Protein backbone atom coordinates (compact mmCIF):
# COMPACT_ATOMS: atom_id res chain seq x y z
CA UNK A 1 0.00 0.00 0.00
CA UNK A 2 1.27 3.51 -0.81
CA UNK A 3 1.97 5.82 2.14
CA UNK A 4 -0.67 8.34 3.13
CA UNK A 5 1.47 11.31 2.07
CA UNK A 6 1.97 9.78 -1.41
CA UNK A 7 -1.75 9.00 -1.62
CA UNK A 8 -2.67 12.54 -0.57
CA UNK A 9 -0.54 14.14 -3.28
CA UNK A 10 -1.93 11.77 -5.93
CA UNK A 11 -5.51 12.44 -4.81
CA UNK A 12 -4.89 16.19 -4.92
CA UNK A 13 -3.54 15.82 -8.46
CA UNK A 14 -6.56 13.75 -9.42
CA UNK A 15 -4.57 10.65 -10.40
CA UNK A 16 -6.25 8.51 -7.72
CA UNK A 17 -9.65 8.62 -6.01
CA UNK A 18 -10.53 7.81 -2.43
CA UNK A 19 -13.32 5.57 -3.66
CA UNK A 20 -10.88 3.44 -5.70
CA UNK A 21 -8.36 3.34 -2.88
CA UNK A 22 -11.05 2.32 -0.35
CA UNK A 23 -12.38 -0.42 -2.70
CA UNK A 24 -8.85 -1.77 -3.07
CA UNK A 25 -8.39 -1.81 0.69
CA UNK A 26 -11.63 -3.72 1.24
CA UNK A 27 -10.68 -6.37 -1.33
CA UNK A 28 -7.16 -6.65 0.14
CA UNK A 29 -8.62 -7.18 3.63
CA UNK A 30 -10.71 -10.01 2.16
CA UNK A 31 -7.59 -11.55 0.54
CA UNK A 32 -5.69 -11.38 3.84
CA UNK A 33 -8.54 -12.84 5.86
CA UNK A 34 -6.30 -15.61 7.22
CA UNK A 35 -4.51 -13.00 9.36
CA UNK A 36 -7.74 -12.67 11.37
CA UNK A 37 -6.90 -8.99 11.93
CA UNK A 38 -10.44 -7.72 11.35
CA UNK A 39 -13.58 -8.65 13.28
CA UNK A 40 -15.88 -6.35 11.29
CA UNK A 41 -15.43 -4.69 7.90
CA UNK A 42 -17.72 -1.72 7.25
CA UNK A 43 -17.59 -1.43 3.48
CA UNK A 44 -20.77 0.55 2.81
CA UNK A 45 -20.06 3.12 5.53
CA UNK A 46 -16.48 3.47 4.26
CA UNK A 47 -17.55 3.95 0.64
CA UNK A 48 -20.07 6.63 1.66
CA UNK A 49 -17.30 8.48 3.48
CA UNK A 50 -14.98 7.98 0.51
CA UNK A 51 -17.47 9.68 -1.82
CA UNK A 52 -17.44 12.74 0.45
CA UNK A 53 -13.63 12.72 0.49
CA UNK A 54 -13.54 12.65 -3.30
CA UNK A 55 -15.64 15.84 -3.35
CA UNK A 56 -13.24 17.55 -0.95
CA UNK A 57 -10.24 16.58 -3.08
CA UNK A 58 -12.04 17.66 -6.27
CA UNK A 59 -12.82 21.12 -4.85
CA UNK A 60 -9.27 21.55 -3.54
CA UNK A 61 -10.31 21.54 0.12
CA UNK A 62 -8.94 18.32 1.62
CA UNK A 63 -9.15 18.11 5.40
CA UNK A 64 -6.30 16.91 7.66
CA UNK A 65 -7.11 13.17 7.27
CA UNK A 66 -8.91 13.31 3.92
CA UNK A 67 -9.21 9.84 2.42
CA UNK A 68 -6.98 8.24 5.05
CA UNK A 69 -7.93 4.58 5.52
CA UNK A 70 -8.30 3.74 9.21
CA UNK A 71 -8.89 0.64 11.34
CA UNK A 72 -10.07 0.79 14.95
CA UNK A 73 -9.37 -1.64 17.74
CA UNK A 74 -12.70 -3.23 18.59
CA UNK A 75 -12.82 -1.72 22.08
CA UNK A 76 -13.48 1.75 20.64
CA UNK A 77 -17.14 2.62 20.42
CA UNK A 78 -18.64 3.12 16.93
CA UNK A 79 -22.28 4.14 16.60
CA UNK A 80 -24.25 1.50 14.71
CA UNK A 81 -21.17 -0.72 14.19
CA UNK A 82 -20.67 -3.78 16.41
CA UNK A 83 -18.05 -3.29 19.14
CA UNK A 84 -17.12 -6.61 20.73
CA UNK A 85 -13.88 -6.18 22.75
CA UNK A 86 -13.20 -9.65 21.26
CA UNK A 87 -15.41 -11.06 24.01
CA UNK A 88 -18.42 -13.33 23.97
CA UNK A 89 -19.77 -10.84 26.52
CA UNK A 90 -20.18 -8.16 23.82
CA UNK A 91 -20.48 -10.37 20.73
CA UNK A 92 -23.71 -8.66 19.61
CA UNK A 93 -23.22 -5.25 21.19
CA UNK A 94 -23.95 -2.31 18.87
CA UNK A 95 -23.04 1.04 20.48
CA UNK A 96 -25.49 3.92 20.31
CA UNK A 97 -22.80 6.60 20.39
CA UNK A 98 -19.34 7.25 18.92
CA UNK A 99 -16.12 7.57 20.88
CA UNK A 100 -14.81 11.16 20.72
CA UNK A 101 -11.86 10.01 18.58
CA UNK A 102 -14.32 8.57 16.04
CA UNK A 103 -16.24 11.85 15.75
CA UNK A 104 -12.96 13.73 15.38
CA UNK A 105 -11.48 11.51 12.65
CA UNK A 106 -14.78 11.64 10.77
CA UNK A 107 -14.80 15.44 10.97
CA UNK A 108 -11.26 15.45 9.50
CA UNK A 109 -12.20 13.23 6.54
CA UNK A 110 -10.86 9.87 7.77
CA UNK A 111 -12.36 6.64 6.41
CA UNK A 112 -13.03 3.87 8.93
CA UNK A 113 -12.90 0.53 7.10
CA UNK A 114 -13.23 -1.84 10.01
CA UNK A 115 -12.81 -2.96 13.58
CA UNK A 116 -9.82 -5.06 14.57
CA UNK A 117 -9.18 -8.13 16.69
CA UNK A 118 -7.58 -7.88 20.14
CA UNK A 119 -6.93 -9.81 23.31
CA UNK A 120 -10.30 -9.94 25.07
CA UNK A 121 -10.94 -6.59 26.80
CA UNK A 122 -7.34 -5.63 25.88
CA UNK A 123 -5.90 -8.14 28.35
CA UNK A 124 -2.94 -9.95 26.87
CA UNK A 125 0.42 -9.61 25.14
CA UNK A 126 0.08 -12.07 22.26
CA UNK A 127 -3.47 -11.71 20.88
CA UNK A 128 -4.10 -15.35 21.74
CA UNK A 129 -6.90 -14.36 24.17
CA UNK A 130 -9.51 -13.31 21.61
CA UNK A 131 -12.91 -15.05 21.74
CA UNK A 132 -12.79 -14.92 17.92
CA UNK A 133 -9.42 -16.60 17.38
CA UNK A 134 -5.77 -15.54 17.48
CA UNK A 135 -4.29 -12.96 15.09
CA UNK A 136 -1.47 -14.10 12.81
CA UNK A 137 1.86 -12.32 12.56
CA UNK A 138 2.30 -11.03 8.96
CA UNK A 139 5.46 -13.19 8.71
CA UNK A 140 3.41 -16.28 9.57
CA UNK A 141 5.54 -19.14 10.94
CA UNK A 142 3.22 -19.60 13.93
CA UNK A 143 4.48 -16.33 15.44
CA UNK A 144 2.33 -14.07 17.62
CA UNK A 145 1.88 -10.43 16.55
CA UNK A 146 1.94 -9.22 20.17
CA UNK A 147 -0.99 -7.70 21.95
CA UNK A 148 -3.32 -6.56 22.97
CA UNK A 149 -3.74 -4.33 19.88
CA UNK A 150 -2.68 -7.23 17.63
CA UNK A 151 -5.32 -6.78 14.93
CA UNK A 152 -4.69 -3.04 14.56
CA UNK A 153 -0.95 -3.61 14.38
CA UNK A 154 -1.21 -6.37 11.79
CA UNK A 155 -3.62 -4.25 9.71
CA UNK A 156 -0.86 -1.61 9.46
CA UNK A 157 2.04 -4.05 9.12
CA UNK A 158 0.33 -5.98 6.30
CA UNK A 159 -0.37 -2.73 4.45
CA UNK A 160 -4.15 -2.99 4.79
CA UNK A 161 -4.68 0.52 6.24
CA UNK A 162 -2.77 3.79 6.56
CA UNK A 163 -3.29 4.03 10.28
CA UNK A 164 -4.96 2.14 13.11
CA UNK A 165 -5.98 3.02 16.64
CA UNK A 166 -5.18 0.78 19.56
CA UNK A 167 -5.26 1.19 23.31
CA UNK A 168 -2.20 1.02 25.56
CA UNK A 169 -2.66 0.19 29.25
CA UNK A 170 0.75 -1.41 29.83
CA UNK A 171 2.27 -1.54 26.35
CA UNK A 172 -0.58 -2.83 24.20
CA UNK A 173 0.26 -0.47 21.32
CA UNK A 174 4.07 -0.34 21.60
CA UNK A 175 4.71 -4.06 22.19
CA UNK A 176 2.87 -5.36 19.07
CA UNK A 177 4.33 -2.44 17.06
CA UNK A 178 7.83 -3.63 17.98
CA UNK A 179 7.03 -7.27 17.20
CA UNK A 180 5.53 -6.43 13.78
CA UNK A 181 7.91 -3.66 12.69
CA UNK A 182 5.64 -0.57 12.71
CA UNK A 183 5.45 2.68 14.68
CA UNK A 184 3.36 2.53 17.88
CA UNK A 185 2.73 5.67 19.91
CA UNK A 186 1.20 6.04 23.37
CA UNK A 187 0.63 9.74 24.13
CA UNK A 188 0.67 11.39 27.56
CA UNK A 189 -2.23 10.32 29.76
CA UNK A 190 -5.01 12.83 29.12
CA UNK A 191 -3.82 14.00 25.68
CA UNK A 192 -6.40 11.91 23.76
CA UNK A 193 -9.96 11.56 25.04
CA UNK A 194 -10.89 8.12 26.36
CA UNK A 195 -14.63 8.78 25.97
CA UNK A 196 -15.99 5.71 24.21
CA UNK A 197 -12.94 3.52 24.89
CA UNK A 198 -14.19 0.49 26.83
CA UNK A 199 -12.39 0.83 30.18
CA UNK A 200 -9.80 -1.73 31.34
CA UNK A 201 -7.73 0.20 33.92
CA UNK A 202 -8.86 3.81 33.80
CA UNK A 203 -5.81 5.42 35.42
CA UNK A 204 -3.48 3.67 32.94
CA UNK A 205 -5.52 3.35 29.71
CA UNK A 206 -4.60 5.57 26.78
CA UNK A 207 -5.67 5.42 23.15
CA UNK A 208 -2.59 5.05 20.97
CA UNK A 209 -1.71 5.25 17.27
CA UNK A 210 -0.19 2.63 14.93
CA UNK A 211 1.21 3.62 11.53
CA UNK A 212 4.07 2.74 9.21
CA UNK A 213 5.85 6.07 9.72
CA UNK A 214 6.08 8.87 12.29
CA UNK A 215 4.71 11.53 9.97
CA UNK A 216 1.35 9.75 9.54
CA UNK A 217 1.30 9.16 13.31
CA UNK A 218 1.84 12.89 13.96
CA UNK A 219 -0.85 13.93 11.47
CA UNK A 220 -3.36 11.58 13.04
CA UNK A 221 -2.44 12.67 16.57
CA UNK A 222 -3.02 16.34 15.65
CA UNK A 223 -6.50 15.43 14.37
CA UNK A 224 -7.74 13.56 17.46
CA UNK A 225 -5.87 15.08 20.45
CA UNK A 226 -7.06 17.87 22.76
CA UNK A 227 -9.47 18.51 25.60
CA UNK A 228 -12.86 16.80 25.57
CA UNK A 229 -15.62 17.88 27.92
CA UNK A 230 -16.87 14.27 27.93
CA UNK A 231 -13.62 12.99 29.50
CA UNK A 232 -12.77 15.00 32.61
CA UNK A 233 -9.29 13.44 32.71
CA UNK A 234 -8.27 15.11 29.43
CA UNK A 235 -5.73 17.88 29.89
CA UNK A 236 -6.88 21.46 29.33
CA UNK A 237 -4.92 21.80 26.11
CA UNK A 238 -5.92 22.28 22.48
CA UNK A 239 -5.05 19.76 19.76
CA UNK A 240 -1.34 19.18 19.16
CA UNK A 241 0.58 20.68 16.22
CA UNK A 242 3.21 18.01 15.83
CA UNK A 243 3.15 17.57 12.04
CA UNK A 244 4.94 20.90 11.42
CA UNK A 245 7.34 20.33 14.31
CA UNK A 246 8.71 16.95 13.27
CA UNK A 247 10.04 18.38 9.98
CA UNK A 248 12.42 20.75 11.82
CA UNK A 249 16.04 19.61 11.42
CA UNK A 250 17.52 17.51 14.24
CA UNK A 251 19.25 19.52 16.97
CA UNK A 252 23.04 19.46 16.84
CA UNK A 253 23.20 18.29 20.40
CA UNK A 254 20.66 16.62 22.66
CA UNK A 255 20.71 14.36 25.71
CA UNK A 256 19.62 10.74 25.76
CA UNK A 257 19.29 8.83 29.04
CA UNK A 258 19.75 5.05 29.15
CA UNK A 259 18.97 2.39 31.77
CA UNK A 260 21.86 0.72 33.61
CA UNK A 261 23.15 -2.33 31.68
CA UNK A 262 22.05 -4.58 34.55
CA UNK A 263 18.40 -3.81 33.75
CA UNK A 264 18.86 -5.04 30.20
CA UNK A 265 20.20 -8.40 31.36
CA UNK A 266 16.96 -10.22 30.50
CA UNK A 267 17.08 -9.13 26.86
CA UNK A 268 17.65 -11.39 23.90
CA UNK A 269 21.16 -11.03 22.36
CA UNK A 270 19.70 -9.76 19.06
CA UNK A 271 17.73 -7.05 20.88
CA UNK A 272 20.89 -5.91 22.71
CA UNK A 273 22.86 -5.86 19.47
CA UNK A 274 20.33 -3.53 17.84
CA UNK A 275 20.09 -1.44 21.01
CA UNK A 276 23.84 -0.79 21.33
CA UNK A 277 24.39 -0.21 17.61
CA UNK A 278 21.52 2.31 17.47
CA UNK A 279 22.84 4.05 20.56
CA UNK A 280 26.17 4.43 18.75
CA UNK A 281 24.37 6.01 15.77
CA UNK A 282 22.71 8.48 18.13
CA UNK A 283 26.09 9.31 19.69
CA UNK A 284 27.52 10.02 16.23
CA UNK A 285 24.60 12.34 15.52
CA UNK A 286 24.89 14.66 18.47
CA UNK A 287 23.54 12.69 21.43
CA UNK A 288 25.14 12.94 24.83
CA UNK A 289 24.39 9.65 26.57
CA UNK A 290 23.79 9.78 30.33
CA UNK A 291 22.81 7.06 32.81
CA UNK A 292 19.27 6.99 34.21
CA UNK A 293 18.47 5.36 37.50
CA UNK A 294 14.78 4.82 38.08
CA UNK A 295 14.40 3.32 41.55
CA UNK A 296 12.17 0.33 42.00
CA UNK A 297 12.36 -0.98 38.46
CA UNK A 298 12.36 -4.57 39.77
CA UNK A 299 8.80 -3.90 40.91
CA UNK A 300 7.47 -2.29 37.71
CA UNK A 301 5.57 -5.36 36.59
CA UNK A 302 4.17 -6.28 40.04
CA UNK A 303 3.09 -2.68 40.60
CA UNK A 304 1.45 -2.59 37.21
CA UNK A 305 -0.38 -5.90 37.62
CA UNK A 306 -1.70 -5.00 41.07
CA UNK A 307 -3.08 -1.64 39.93
CA UNK A 308 -4.31 -2.77 36.51
CA UNK A 309 -6.13 -5.85 37.78
CA UNK A 310 -7.63 -3.94 40.71
CA UNK A 311 -9.05 -1.33 38.36
CA UNK A 312 -10.16 -4.00 35.89
CA UNK A 313 -12.09 -5.94 38.54
CA UNK A 314 -13.97 -2.76 39.33
CA UNK A 315 -14.51 -1.67 35.70
CA UNK A 316 -15.70 -5.11 34.57
CA UNK A 317 -18.22 -5.34 37.39
CA UNK A 318 -20.62 -3.53 35.04
CA UNK A 319 -21.00 -6.64 32.88
CA UNK A 320 -23.91 -8.28 34.64
CA UNK A 321 -26.20 -9.31 31.78
CA UNK A 322 -28.86 -6.81 32.84
CA UNK A 323 -28.72 -3.76 30.56
CA UNK A 324 -26.54 -4.92 27.67
CA UNK A 325 -24.14 -7.68 26.75
CA UNK A 326 -24.40 -11.43 27.10
CA UNK A 327 -27.06 -12.97 29.33
CA UNK A 328 -26.88 -16.68 30.08
CA UNK A 329 -30.06 -18.35 28.88
CA UNK A 330 -30.03 -21.35 31.19
CA UNK A 331 -32.31 -20.91 34.14
CA UNK A 332 -34.28 -17.82 34.96
CA UNK A 333 -34.56 -18.61 38.64
CA UNK A 334 -33.20 -15.53 40.33
CA UNK A 335 -31.24 -12.43 39.46
CA UNK A 336 -28.06 -13.25 41.32
CA UNK A 337 -27.71 -16.67 39.68
CA UNK A 338 -28.31 -15.03 36.29
CA UNK A 339 -25.50 -12.53 36.91
CA UNK A 340 -23.00 -15.19 38.04
CA UNK A 341 -23.84 -17.44 35.08
CA UNK A 342 -23.65 -14.61 32.54
CA UNK A 343 -20.23 -13.50 33.78
CA UNK A 344 -18.90 -17.04 34.05
CA UNK A 345 -19.95 -17.95 30.51
CA UNK A 346 -19.33 -14.52 28.96
CA UNK A 347 -15.72 -13.88 30.01
CA UNK A 348 -12.66 -15.81 28.79
CA UNK A 349 -9.93 -17.35 30.98
CA UNK A 350 -7.43 -14.46 31.11
CA UNK A 351 -10.14 -11.88 31.83
CA UNK A 352 -11.43 -14.04 34.68
CA UNK A 353 -7.89 -14.52 35.99
CA UNK A 354 -7.37 -10.76 36.12
CA UNK A 355 -10.76 -10.05 37.68
CA UNK A 356 -9.90 -12.64 40.34
CA UNK A 357 -6.45 -11.18 41.01
CA UNK A 358 -7.86 -7.64 41.15
CA UNK A 359 -10.68 -8.68 43.47
CA UNK A 360 -8.15 -10.41 45.71
CA UNK A 361 -5.77 -7.44 46.02
CA UNK A 362 -8.69 -5.15 46.85
CA UNK A 363 -10.33 -7.54 49.30
CA UNK A 364 -10.50 -6.82 53.00
CA UNK A 365 -7.20 -7.59 54.73
CA UNK A 366 -5.08 -7.42 51.57
CA UNK A 367 -5.74 -3.84 50.44
CA UNK A 368 -2.82 -2.36 52.40
CA UNK A 369 -0.48 -5.23 51.57
CA UNK A 370 -0.93 -4.92 47.81
CA UNK A 371 -2.99 -2.04 46.46
CA UNK A 372 -1.72 0.66 48.83
CA UNK A 373 1.88 -0.45 48.39
CA UNK A 374 1.51 -0.46 44.62
CA UNK A 375 0.19 3.12 44.73
CA UNK A 376 3.30 4.11 46.67
CA UNK A 377 5.55 2.25 44.25
CA UNK A 378 3.79 4.10 41.44
CA UNK A 379 4.85 7.43 42.94
CA UNK A 380 8.42 6.11 43.06
CA UNK A 381 8.27 5.49 39.30
CA UNK A 382 6.89 8.99 38.66
CA UNK A 383 9.56 10.63 40.86
CA UNK A 384 12.27 8.63 39.08
CA UNK A 385 11.10 9.76 35.66
CA UNK A 386 10.76 13.39 36.79
CA UNK A 387 14.38 13.24 37.84
CA UNK A 388 15.53 11.69 34.55
CA UNK A 389 13.77 14.32 32.44
CA UNK A 390 15.32 17.26 34.27
CA UNK A 391 18.60 16.08 32.69
CA UNK A 392 17.61 14.32 29.47
CA UNK A 393 15.39 15.00 26.45
CA UNK A 394 14.66 11.33 25.87
CA UNK A 395 14.94 7.99 27.65
CA UNK A 396 16.03 5.38 25.08
CA UNK A 397 15.38 1.68 25.73
CA UNK A 398 14.23 -1.50 23.98
CA UNK A 399 10.45 -1.87 23.57
CA UNK A 400 10.45 -5.61 24.29
CA UNK A 401 13.01 -8.05 25.72
CA UNK A 402 12.60 -10.42 22.73
CA UNK A 403 11.37 -10.37 19.12
CA UNK A 404 8.06 -12.08 18.26
CA UNK A 405 7.62 -15.42 20.06
CA UNK A 406 5.73 -18.54 19.00
CA UNK A 407 2.08 -19.21 19.62
CA UNK A 408 1.48 -21.18 22.80
CA UNK A 409 5.01 -20.48 24.05
CA UNK A 410 3.90 -18.43 27.06
CA UNK A 411 0.21 -19.25 27.47
CA UNK A 412 0.74 -21.77 30.27
CA UNK A 413 2.76 -19.36 32.41
CA UNK A 414 1.02 -16.01 33.07
CA UNK A 415 4.13 -14.51 34.72
CA UNK A 416 6.32 -15.22 31.66
CA UNK A 417 3.69 -13.53 29.49
CA UNK A 418 3.48 -10.52 31.83
CA UNK A 419 7.29 -10.09 31.65
CA UNK A 420 7.13 -9.30 27.93
CA UNK A 421 5.74 -5.92 29.08
CA UNK A 422 8.81 -5.23 31.25
CA UNK A 423 9.95 -2.12 29.34
CA UNK A 424 6.53 -0.68 28.56
CA UNK A 425 4.46 -0.61 31.78
CA UNK A 426 6.47 2.14 33.49
CA UNK A 427 5.33 4.78 30.97
CA UNK A 428 1.70 4.00 31.84
CA UNK A 429 2.46 4.09 35.57
CA UNK A 430 4.02 7.56 35.16
CA UNK A 431 1.52 8.73 32.52
CA UNK A 432 4.35 9.84 30.19
CA UNK A 433 4.38 9.62 26.37
CA UNK A 434 6.31 6.77 24.74
CA UNK A 435 6.80 5.51 21.20
CA UNK A 436 8.19 2.36 19.62
CA UNK A 437 9.92 2.67 16.25
CA UNK A 438 11.30 -0.07 13.98
CA UNK A 439 15.06 -0.19 14.59
CA UNK A 440 16.41 -3.40 13.08
CA UNK A 441 15.89 -7.13 12.73
CA UNK A 442 17.03 -10.27 14.53
CA UNK A 443 19.33 -12.87 12.98
CA UNK A 444 16.12 -14.69 11.92
CA UNK A 445 14.77 -11.57 10.22
CA UNK A 446 12.20 -10.68 12.88
CA UNK A 447 11.50 -6.98 13.54
CA UNK A 448 13.03 -5.34 16.61
CA UNK A 449 11.69 -2.07 18.00
CA UNK A 450 13.33 0.59 20.13
CA UNK A 451 11.44 2.85 22.48
CA UNK A 452 11.69 6.57 23.19
CA UNK A 453 10.07 8.07 26.26
CA UNK A 454 9.74 11.74 27.23
CA UNK A 455 8.26 13.85 30.01
CA UNK A 456 4.52 14.38 30.29
CA UNK A 457 3.00 16.69 27.65
CA UNK A 458 6.23 16.68 25.63
CA UNK A 459 4.45 14.58 22.97
CA UNK A 460 5.31 16.85 20.06
CA UNK A 461 9.03 16.83 20.85
CA UNK A 462 8.90 13.07 21.37
CA UNK A 463 7.46 12.64 17.86
CA UNK A 464 10.12 15.03 16.50
CA UNK A 465 12.95 12.93 17.95
CA UNK A 466 11.21 9.70 16.90
CA UNK A 467 10.89 10.96 13.32
CA UNK A 468 14.62 11.70 13.15
CA UNK A 469 15.71 8.54 14.95
CA UNK A 470 13.55 6.51 12.57
CA UNK A 471 15.36 8.05 9.60
CA UNK A 472 18.77 7.47 11.19
CA UNK A 473 17.95 3.82 11.93
CA UNK A 474 16.31 2.79 8.65
Amino acid at each position, binding site marked *: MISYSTFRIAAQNGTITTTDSTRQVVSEIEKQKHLNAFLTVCESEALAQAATSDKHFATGSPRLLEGMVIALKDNISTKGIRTTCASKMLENFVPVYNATVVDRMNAHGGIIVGKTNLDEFAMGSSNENSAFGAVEHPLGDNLVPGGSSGGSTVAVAAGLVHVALGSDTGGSVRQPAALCGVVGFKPTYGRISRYGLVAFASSLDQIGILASDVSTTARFFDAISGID*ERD*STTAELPATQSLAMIEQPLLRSFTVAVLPDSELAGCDADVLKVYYSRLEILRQNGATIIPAEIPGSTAWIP*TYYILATAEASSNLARFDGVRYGFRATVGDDDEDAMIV*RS*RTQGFGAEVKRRI*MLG*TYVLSSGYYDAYYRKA*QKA*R*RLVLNGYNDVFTKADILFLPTTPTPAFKRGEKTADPVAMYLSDYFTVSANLAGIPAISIPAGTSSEGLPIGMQLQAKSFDDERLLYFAHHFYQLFN
Partner: protein
Amino acid sequence: MNPIETVEYVAELARLKFTEDEISQFANQFQNILSYIQTIEELDLEGIEPLTHISQAENVFREDVVQPSLPLEDVLRNAPKRNESFFKVPKVL
Protein backbone atom coordinates in the same frame (compact mmCIF):
# COMPACT_ATOMS: atom_id res chain seq x y z
CA MET B 1 -7.80 -19.90 54.42
CA ASN B 2 -5.99 -22.43 52.25
CA PRO B 3 -5.39 -21.55 48.56
CA ILE B 4 -8.50 -23.45 47.39
CA GLU B 5 -10.72 -21.68 49.93
CA THR B 6 -9.20 -18.35 48.99
CA VAL B 7 -9.99 -18.87 45.31
CA GLU B 8 -13.56 -19.91 46.17
CA TYR B 9 -14.02 -16.86 48.39
CA VAL B 10 -12.61 -14.43 45.81
CA ALA B 11 -14.76 -16.03 43.06
CA GLU B 12 -17.83 -15.35 45.16
CA LEU B 13 -16.82 -11.69 45.58
CA ALA B 14 -16.18 -11.42 41.82
CA ARG B 15 -19.51 -13.03 40.90
CA LEU B 16 -17.80 -15.88 39.05
CA LYS B 17 -18.16 -19.64 39.32
CA PHE B 18 -15.49 -22.24 38.58
CA THR B 19 -15.34 -25.99 38.26
CA GLU B 20 -13.22 -27.93 40.75
CA ASP B 21 -10.50 -28.39 38.11
CA GLU B 22 -10.47 -24.68 37.35
CA ILE B 23 -10.25 -23.84 41.04
CA SER B 24 -7.19 -26.00 41.62
CA GLN B 25 -5.57 -24.64 38.45
CA PHE B 26 -6.33 -21.09 39.57
CA ALA B 27 -4.98 -21.79 43.04
CA ASN B 28 -1.67 -22.86 41.47
CA GLN B 29 -1.41 -19.91 39.10
CA PHE B 30 -2.46 -17.57 41.90
CA GLN B 31 0.39 -18.79 44.08
CA ASN B 32 2.85 -18.16 41.26
CA ILE B 33 1.54 -14.71 40.44
CA LEU B 34 1.31 -13.70 44.10
CA SER B 35 4.80 -14.89 44.95
CA TYR B 36 6.04 -12.91 41.96
CA ILE B 37 4.25 -9.72 42.93
CA GLN B 38 5.72 -10.05 46.43
CA THR B 39 8.87 -8.40 44.96
CA ILE B 40 7.10 -5.15 45.77
CA GLU B 41 7.97 -5.94 49.41
CA GLU B 42 11.63 -5.33 48.63
CA LEU B 43 11.04 -1.64 47.91
CA ASP B 44 11.71 1.03 50.51
CA LEU B 45 8.39 2.86 50.53
CA GLU B 46 8.84 4.60 53.87
CA GLY B 47 7.34 8.10 53.81
CA ILE B 48 6.12 7.86 50.21
CA GLU B 49 2.61 9.14 49.55
CA PRO B 50 0.38 6.81 47.53
CA LEU B 51 -0.25 8.04 43.99
CA THR B 52 -3.97 7.69 43.48
CA HIS B 53 -4.23 9.29 40.06
CA ILE B 54 -1.81 10.62 37.49
CA SER B 55 -3.95 13.57 36.40
CA GLN B 56 -3.16 16.94 37.97
CA ALA B 57 -6.81 18.01 37.82
CA GLU B 58 -8.74 18.10 41.10
CA ASN B 59 -12.32 19.04 40.36
CA VAL B 60 -13.53 19.60 36.83
CA PHE B 61 -16.65 21.76 36.86
CA ARG B 62 -18.93 22.85 34.06
CA GLU B 63 -22.15 24.82 33.83
CA ASP B 64 -25.25 22.80 34.63
CA VAL B 65 -26.86 23.11 31.21
CA VAL B 66 -29.66 20.78 30.14
CA GLN B 67 -28.64 18.75 27.10
CA PRO B 68 -30.52 16.05 25.24
CA SER B 69 -29.84 12.57 26.62
CA LEU B 70 -30.04 9.30 24.70
CA PRO B 71 -33.48 8.42 23.32
CA LEU B 72 -35.19 5.67 25.33
CA GLU B 73 -35.18 3.35 22.34
CA ASP B 74 -31.36 3.65 22.08
CA VAL B 75 -30.90 3.00 25.78
CA LEU B 76 -32.87 -0.23 25.52
CA ARG B 77 -31.47 -1.32 22.15
CA ASN B 78 -28.85 -3.70 23.60
CA ALA B 79 -31.00 -5.03 26.44
CA PRO B 80 -30.92 -8.86 26.59
CA LYS B 81 -34.57 -8.78 27.72
CA ARG B 82 -37.01 -5.92 27.96
CA ASN B 83 -40.60 -5.24 28.77
CA GLU B 84 -41.90 -2.07 27.08
CA SER B 85 -39.67 0.67 28.49
CA PHE B 86 -38.00 -1.46 31.18
CA PHE B 87 -35.04 -3.83 31.45
CA LYS B 88 -36.40 -7.23 32.38
CA VAL B 89 -34.59 -9.41 34.94
CA PRO B 90 -35.44 -12.62 36.79
CA LYS B 91 -37.36 -12.14 40.02
CA VAL B 92 -35.36 -10.30 42.68
CA LEU B 93 -37.51 -11.12 45.71
